């Protein structure tokens, strides 16, 4: 039957192909949306590991996580260094890494922090940050680059760069009097860390020393750096601080204390919770798109059945000849069902290939914009389920024309 069916389809190749492509495209739509969302979620989740809480000004917890971890959005408030120094004394804390954000280098975010950042901040299930070249900054004039920064801008250890105040290139806001030297380049992590430039908090403070009220008052090369008292180079405010606790079970007590800290309005955000909230929101949008895609798939299946029913009239001749030669009505209706099955399988196979291509491009896009790198896979169990449902729906709905053919041919004259 297969060769007869294939040849029959070939004689109706254009409408059949159109219907198959329509079905294929709608499946690609459904799966791509799902994959992209999953990829983004995975990538985000893998971006931070081992940080129990993030201390920041009292604001939306999601916002805090977004700008401190993913460098999305801007900090609008600061916390004082004094508060962090105070909190440092607590004995439930294992380590604390303060950071300051707000500057950029050629559109890459600058993260000012202490050198212990590279020891405590991990990603993807406890993987440590490692350097591919050079070493962590040890002087306030040194910077460490994320892997993508070095690659995209062709920097090597020893190159000298400028840092801009604020987050985009602005000719008047360049600190063009002072150049930082690249001391090290990090290995690729597949997280936003790859797209960041790291410098010491003191270097960051130095950068802003010549500025008062947003205006450059003096150039740094006009001042003898050794005359500046070391304490003055400690920044007075910070954006946030990452915290690791000795025992994770004390997490809630910790966040409560921070919330009740008397001297400043701060709070401690648990990254897992913030991310979980993010995915709830995203999940709603995702479900909306999925529903839409399923509707389109249903429409494509209806188109396929319509095509088959329409073609039955044309195939009367063909079917009568089979019938005269001994084919049962069951054979004829079987051909209809197998045709639907065949179209479905071809559409699915094509969809798998197309989705892989789409995923590939989407993944590299996610990588270049957000720095995250989700893993690639050919097909997942959930997707197999989706395909099975669609195939089953297609085959079941082909029973309509199949029964039509069956009944028409059951007791018929041959003409």
């Amino acid at each position, binding site marked *: 039957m297969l060769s007869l069916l294939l040849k029959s389809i070939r004689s109706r190749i254009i409408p059949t192909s159109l219907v198959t492509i329509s079905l294929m495209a709608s499946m690609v739509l459904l799966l791509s949306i799902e994959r992209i969302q*999953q990829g983004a*979620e*995975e990538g985000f*989740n*893998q971006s931070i*590991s*081992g940080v*129990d809480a993030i201390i920041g000004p009292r604001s939306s917890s999601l916002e805090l996580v977004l700008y401190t971890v993913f460098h999305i959005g801007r900090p609008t408030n600061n916390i004082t260094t004094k508060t962090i120094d105070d909190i440092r004394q607590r*004995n*439930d804390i*294992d380590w604390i890494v303060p950071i300051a954000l707000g500057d950029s280098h050629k559109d890459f975010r600058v993260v000012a922090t202490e050198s212990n950042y590279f020891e405590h901040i991990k990603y993807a*299930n406890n993987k440590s940050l490692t350097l591919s070249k050079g070493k962590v900054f040890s002087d306030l004039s040194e910077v460490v680059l994320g892997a993508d920064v070095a690659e995209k801008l062709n920097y090597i250890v020893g190159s000298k760069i400028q840092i801009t105040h604020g987050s985009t290139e602005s000719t008047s806001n360049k600190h063009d009097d002072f150049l930082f030297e690249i001391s090290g380049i990090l290995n690729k992590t597949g997280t936003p860390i790859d797209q960041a430039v790291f410098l010491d908090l003191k270097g960051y403070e130095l950068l802003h020393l010549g500025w008062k009220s947003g205006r450059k008052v003096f150039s740094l090369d006009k001042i003898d750096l050794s005359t500046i008292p070391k304490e003055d180079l400690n920044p007075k405010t910070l954006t946030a601080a990452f915290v690791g606790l*000795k*025992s*994770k*079970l*004390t*997490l*809630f*007590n910790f*966040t*409560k204390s921070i919330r009740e800290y008397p001297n400043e309005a701060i709070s401690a955000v*648990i990254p*897992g*919770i913030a*991310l*979980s*909230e993010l*995915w*709830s929101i995203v999940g709603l949008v995702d479900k909306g798109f999925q529903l839409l895609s399923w509707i389109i798939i249903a429409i494509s299946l209806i188109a396929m059945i319509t095509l088959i029913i329409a073609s039955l009239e044309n195939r009367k001749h063909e079917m009568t000849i089979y019938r005269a030669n001994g084919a049962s009505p069951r054979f004829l209706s079987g051909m209809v*069902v*197998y045709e639907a*099955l065949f179209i479905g399988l071809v559409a699915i196979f094509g969809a798998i290939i197309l989705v892989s291509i789409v995923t590939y491009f989407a993944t590299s896009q996610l990588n270049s914009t957000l720095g995250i790198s989700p*893993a690639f896979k050919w097909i997942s169990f959930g997707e*197999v*389920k989706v395909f*099975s*449902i669609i*195939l*089953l729906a297609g*085959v079941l709905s082909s029973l309509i024309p199949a029964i039509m053919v069956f009944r028409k041919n059951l007791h018929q004259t041959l003409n």
Partner: protein
Amino acid sequence: MIQKIFATFLIFLSVNSFAIVVTDEYLSTLVSNWSRLEPAGAYDFIPEDLSYETYMDPDFLAKLDEAGKKLNNTLEGQDIALPGFMVPIEFKGTNVSKFLLVPEAGQCIHVPPPPLNQTLLVDASSEPTKLRDLYIPIIVYGRISVGSQSFDIADSGYTITDAVIETLSFSDEAYINNIEDNND
């Protein structure tokens, strides 16, 4: 052919995990497991006729705090089932490999945090579980191990390993009953 496809479809459906629904009695048993985490007699210092004054006395409050840190060592190595809520700590892809289990929802945000002996670190690294929103009730089945009672090292408090996690679903009836009970 069609039958084969249909059968495969049914098998796929059954492999889906749905939330489990439990009876009220079973749920009460599970909820009572939380009190097993407190060592026997830990709260014996609370007098029968507690006066408001005592309740607000800082020494009394300090004793409550202390009692909340006490661990029940007899639970070491035992299998336990606890209903509660998930606070994700560690992710693996889109799943959660480590989370804190707390008895009430929202405990890390609005409501005062639970005592240290009513929080557990659940280690699902061998088989990471689906992320559930903070307010989705779950049941955790696993083996409990009791760590140090001084909470300034990593290996302290209760940890559950070999965890199996199920989402819990309440029928509307059960929910209404619970409200009535609470109003007594």
